[in-house]
């Protein structure tokens, strides 16, 4: 009899533990995933431009310690020696330097064009256009030794298909601000 009672006891205990474990799984599975994936998620966020911050036309935005303003976005039509159906696009920014530690704040600086479908173009090296002396690229500006209050003129050159010129918007991402990036709106938006 006692043995049977014992068996019944054990059986009940097991049921209880089964129920408890099921509830525990609800906590443990997300917890384990969080603990295991913490470093990877952090790396994913720090390395990629994922979430946009929109900047209205004509306005400037504080980003990576400085104030960024889109001054111009235009196509350089009529150039020779380019594949048919393509057009070079120039994006000009005026950046007022706030924190001059650009080598850290602007690390991995990436200027791109994003179209309506979310496709991204990086600056090209296939097209070289003459530019005034005071114009720099984002990367060269990092090493320019700019001080607080300086205004940097940045220009990046892209090569895009002709049919996307109406929908492309310039965007900027820097290491210190990722996963956020600036997406500049145009006048007509």
């Amino acid at each position, binding site marked *: 009899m006692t043995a049977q009672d014992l068996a019944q006891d054990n059986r009940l205990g097991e049921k209880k533990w089964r129920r408890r474990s099921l509830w525990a799984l609800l906590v443990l599975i997300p917890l384990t995933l969080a603990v295991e994936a913490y470093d990877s998620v952090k790396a994913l966020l720090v390395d990629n431009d994922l979430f946009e911050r929109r900047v209205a036309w004509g306005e400037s935005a504080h980003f990576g310690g400085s104030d960024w303003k889109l001054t111009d976005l235009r196509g350089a039509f009529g150039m020779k020696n380019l594949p048919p159906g393509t057009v070079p696009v120039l994006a000009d920014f005026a950046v007022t330097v706030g924190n001059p530690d650009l080598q850290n704040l602007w690390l991995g600086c990436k200027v791109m064009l994003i179209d309506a479908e979310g*496709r991204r173009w990086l600056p090209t090296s296939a097209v070289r256009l003459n530019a005034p002396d005071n114009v720099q690229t984002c990367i060269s500006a990092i090493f320019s030794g700019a001080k607080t209050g300086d205004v940097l003129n940045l220009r990046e050159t892209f090569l895009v298909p002709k049919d996307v010129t109406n929908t492309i918007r310039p965007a900027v991402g820097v290491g210190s601000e990722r996963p956020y990036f600036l997406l500049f709106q145009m006048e007509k938006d």
Partner: protein
Amino acid sequence: MRRLANLVLLLVAVALCYGLQMSKPHYADLIGPIPVRGKVGDVVVGRSFEVRVEKVQFARKLRADRYGETKVLTTGGVWALVTVEFAARDASTVVSTASWRGPTRLTYDHTERLSFINNGFLPVTVDPGLQKKARLVFEVRPEEVGNATVLISSKLLAALDSQAEISIGPVAASSDGMPAGTVDTLDLTQPVDGLPK
């Protein structure tokens, strides 16, 4: 009788285990590239870029410009020249590695002897919506030419990224062992896309 049955069972188990041991994927397989297969002429769509093989040529020698001087490059095997057209998909990207995998799975990496040419050869920068032609150049043993596969990926050791695997199909061999249609010299001095430099 029972002993014999046991012995047979043991042998079956050993064979099964050998099969399991041989066919079990390991770390290198688990994190290896994910193949996207196609053949010559197909547009093979990978994650970051798409590629189409236009033509495959074979040559004994290559002529190329090096710092303004024309060089002729010889090889111990045969030059395989694959003309491809790339396009990026969602974002501008760089295609930087290619290799030629022969029928016996010997793998011939893209040659490093043409690294002085910086346009139309690997690494190639490609942008969304813009087709770009390039030449892939391999040095291979002549018998590794037929039924080969050209593997193209954006970077070396691209873990769990897509890799275009384009099968070349059979190539007839001529009497001297070289693939049929092998030319003596191929000229690489002209840009692949026909545009002036």
